[in-house]
């Protein structure tokens, strides 16, 4: 129970007017930055970092921690209301959030679901972080290139659940995603791939503009087709009470949120994975559990799985950062840079040498979680008014948001061009009923898979044995084999009359 004492001490640190104010400021900024597409927590923290040089380090990190954390809340807003993920971990939220807000006409409930799931996911992550922080970081270390390869392969098999009714289309998009992701400099040897002699393409296709284009700008083109149709939501009076979720909704979101929180925390701890990968994996995992409505049509379970996982991961990422000084994500790296500038030495000694700082940060995450929930709840009635804006006004507004968002990833027009091109591709995909989920999943996971697999082969001198020699990776190999072989086994069992044929999916 030592950790609990430390946590209480952490709260003591946080509960000064100055630090509470910093947390609050961080939360509000995080929500705004999160809701703006393109400007994710990475840019937010990087922009704010110079401002904090003059603060005392504890106050500064508390503010940035609050910002990083509440960013995950904010990302869901634009994903649900505009179908443009505010930051990349919210991609999967858009899949169900937007249909729920528009087709099901329950925007308030969709937002609340996202917020509650974020809260639950984050809370789970923080509790796990508090009690097992350093131990958790050690578990993360056990995942070297070999283990990561099999874990990622396992995650890739979940594409099978995401492809929907048409496996051919799903496979095409998966391969397209892998192909696009392989552009740019090879991570291991640094040699250029598919750069077509273009200096911009040397750096590859940037993720954020690509996502904004595929998911968001394609939406703008679709909207242009229906610009003369009056918006459907004008008449509904949107109040806080009107957007409350029912008891039944709460029941539906609870289980996926808890599962997502635990899975997300774990993924967040792993080196090199991150909130986006966590949300994607959790969402695909949800496909194999029971959902009341099919995922992708506005199911509460889908929103809950995605949002809880990305918040869990945000909390989980702090474990290796604080316990070992290892950044689990880009934002983590910026925070780490901040720690060094403030004169703290992140690393295995941080908990011992600067307990005020480490536990103050963890405690501030708890506070940030509650504050972010409260603040975002308060702004819901105002936010959902966006949906009653006439389409013809919405089109230029969203376009501007898309352009600004993709420009700001590298402060150049390159991102904007990528955004427009992928927007057109995304539009064509939607017209021909291709779902973008497998594409994005392959785009996020395949570079990690490639570099880990190649590292594993360097370690083993090209020997395949290594994947079955290590216990963790052996377990994943068995799981992959199980998933891949199950349909075949079932086919024979059904033929032999041992098993009943599975009812056709909706």
């Amino acid at each position, binding site marked *: 129970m030592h950790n609990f004492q430390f946590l209480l001490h952490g709260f003591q640190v946080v509960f000064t007017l100055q630090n509470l104010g910093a947390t609050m400021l961080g939360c509000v900024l995080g929500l705004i930055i999160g809701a703006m597409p393109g400007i994710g927590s990475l840019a937010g923290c*990087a*922009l704010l*970092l*110079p401002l904090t040089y003059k603060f005392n380090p504890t106050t500064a990190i508390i503010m940035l921690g609050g910002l990083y954390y509440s960013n995950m809340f904010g990302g869901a807003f634009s994903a649900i209301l505009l179908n443009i993920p505010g930051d990349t971990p919210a991609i999967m939220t858009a899949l169900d959030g937007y249909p729920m807000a528009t087709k099901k006409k329950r925007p308030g409930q969709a937002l609340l679901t996202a917020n509650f799931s974020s809260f639950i996911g984050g809370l789970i992550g923080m509790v796990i972080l508090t009690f097992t922080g350093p131990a958790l970081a050690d578990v993360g*270390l*056990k*995942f*070297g*290139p*070999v283990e990561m390869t099999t874990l990622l392969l396992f995650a890739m098999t979940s594409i099978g659940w995401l492809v929907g009714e048409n496996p051919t289309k799903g496979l095409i998009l998966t391969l397209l995603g892998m192909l696009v992701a392989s552009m*740019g*400099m090879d*991570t*291991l*040897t*640094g*040699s*250029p791939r598919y750069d077509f002699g273009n*200096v*911009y*393409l*040397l*750096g590859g296709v940037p993720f954020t503009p690509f996502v904004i284009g595929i998911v968001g700008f394609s939406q703008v083109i679709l909207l242009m087709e229906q610009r003369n149709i009056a918006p459907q939501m004008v008449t509904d009076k949107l109040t806080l009470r009107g957007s409350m979720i029912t008891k039944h909704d709460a029941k539906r979101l609870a289980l996926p949120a808890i599962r997502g929180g635990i899975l997300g925390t774990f993924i967040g701890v792993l*080196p*090199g994975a991150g909130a986006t990968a966590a949300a994607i994996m959790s969402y695909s995992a949800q496909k194999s559990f029971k959902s009341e409505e099919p995922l992708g049509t506005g199911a509460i379970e889908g929103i809950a799985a995605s949002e809880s996982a990305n918040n869990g991961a945000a909390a989980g990422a702090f474990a*290796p950062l604080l316990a*070992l*000084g*290892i*950044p689990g994500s*880009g934002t983590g*790296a*910026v925070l*780490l*840079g*901040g720690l*060094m*500038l403030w004169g703290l*030495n*992140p*690393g*295995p*000694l941080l908990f011992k040498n600067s307990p005020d700082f480490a536990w103050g940060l963890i405690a501030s995450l708890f506070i940030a979680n509650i504050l972010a929930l409260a603040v975002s709840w308060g702004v819901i009635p105002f936010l959902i008014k966006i949906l009653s804006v006439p389409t013809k006004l919405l089109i230029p507004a969203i376009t501007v948001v898309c352009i600004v968002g993709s420009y700001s990833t*590298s*402060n*150049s027009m*390159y991102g904007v061009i990528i955004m427009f091109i992928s927007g057109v591709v995304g539009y064509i995909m939607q017209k021909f009923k291709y779902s973008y989920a497998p594409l994005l999943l392959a785009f996020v996971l395949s570079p990690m898979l490639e570099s880990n697999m190649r*590292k594993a082969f*360097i*370690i*083993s*001198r090209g020997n395949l044995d290594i994947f079955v020699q290590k216990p963790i990776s052996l377990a994943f190999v068995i799981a992959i084999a199980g998933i891949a072989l199950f349909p075949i086994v079932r086919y024979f069992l059904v033929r032999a009359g041992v098993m009943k044929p599975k009812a056709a999916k909706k």
Partner: protein
Amino acid sequence: MRKGFMMIALLLAIAVAAPVFAQATFTPSQNIEWIVTSSPGGGSDIYTRIITDIMTKANLINGKTILVNNKTDGGGEVGRLTVSRVAAGKQADHTLLTFNSGDLMPMVANTANRIENFTPIALMAVDKQLLYIGEQSKYKTFADVIAAVKAGKNVVIAGSKGDDVATYKMLIKELGFTETQLAFITNNATSDAITSILGGHVDLVMSKPAAADQYVLAGKLTPILALSNVRFTGNLASAPTLSEVGNYKNVEYPVWRGVVGPKAMSQAAAKYWSGVFKAVSDSDAWKTGYIEKYKLQPFYMDYEQAKDYMTAYQADYLKSIGK
């Protein structure tokens, strides 16, 4: 008459001297744009921001503002290309670019851009690497490592990009091993390499002193080989150089940090900037806040020396990759 003559002579003298004078007294007259080709928070970014901070606080730049611009497109190549192409004039004299050995290598390997397209301004510091073992490593000294490789064992070093790869190649060449015997895993950052040795997935890790510092203090990493001509000091002093380990020459691959401007930058401006960087390099804020803190070695060179150094470095590197 004589007075008139004197007058004319004086005017002539001024007329002749004026351009020289004007050239010699370049001072910044507008905001300075300083381009960094890595993301905020990275090593190059910290280096740049510390210098700008010192310049601003010590008022070395005529009260003008430095705008740091992180241009990361194309792995940094876009930023470098942009700077190399700035046209002569006021803008060219007010544009700076952070330029390190780790920037030069991918630039000349992957693009047609060369150091000749820039005006070198100064070199500021050099960094060197060490090899470390982790708590779970099978080998305790570098002699053990050499023996194991000779016995046919598979030994793996993890490190970062660019400079580390070049140092590794130099090391195996000196040892006479192949890339399969003593393998190297390139990570995106040294922190990733350290992560993999902490988990016991590789045998050795290559790192500069700064990145490994905390882990050495905590006893999680132990230095076993200094990739340098002389031993390091402090808690790294226990690591021998390669010539102490066996009958080999020392392996040292200097990793330098510098600054360049566009090719079109005027000679006067290059001279002026070179002097400003000299002032930074001599300041206490630089010595304690950067060199000591990040465990580098001071290595100031003015614009003329830097030009020779960078050009020679490029020629060596091009030769080593067979270009």
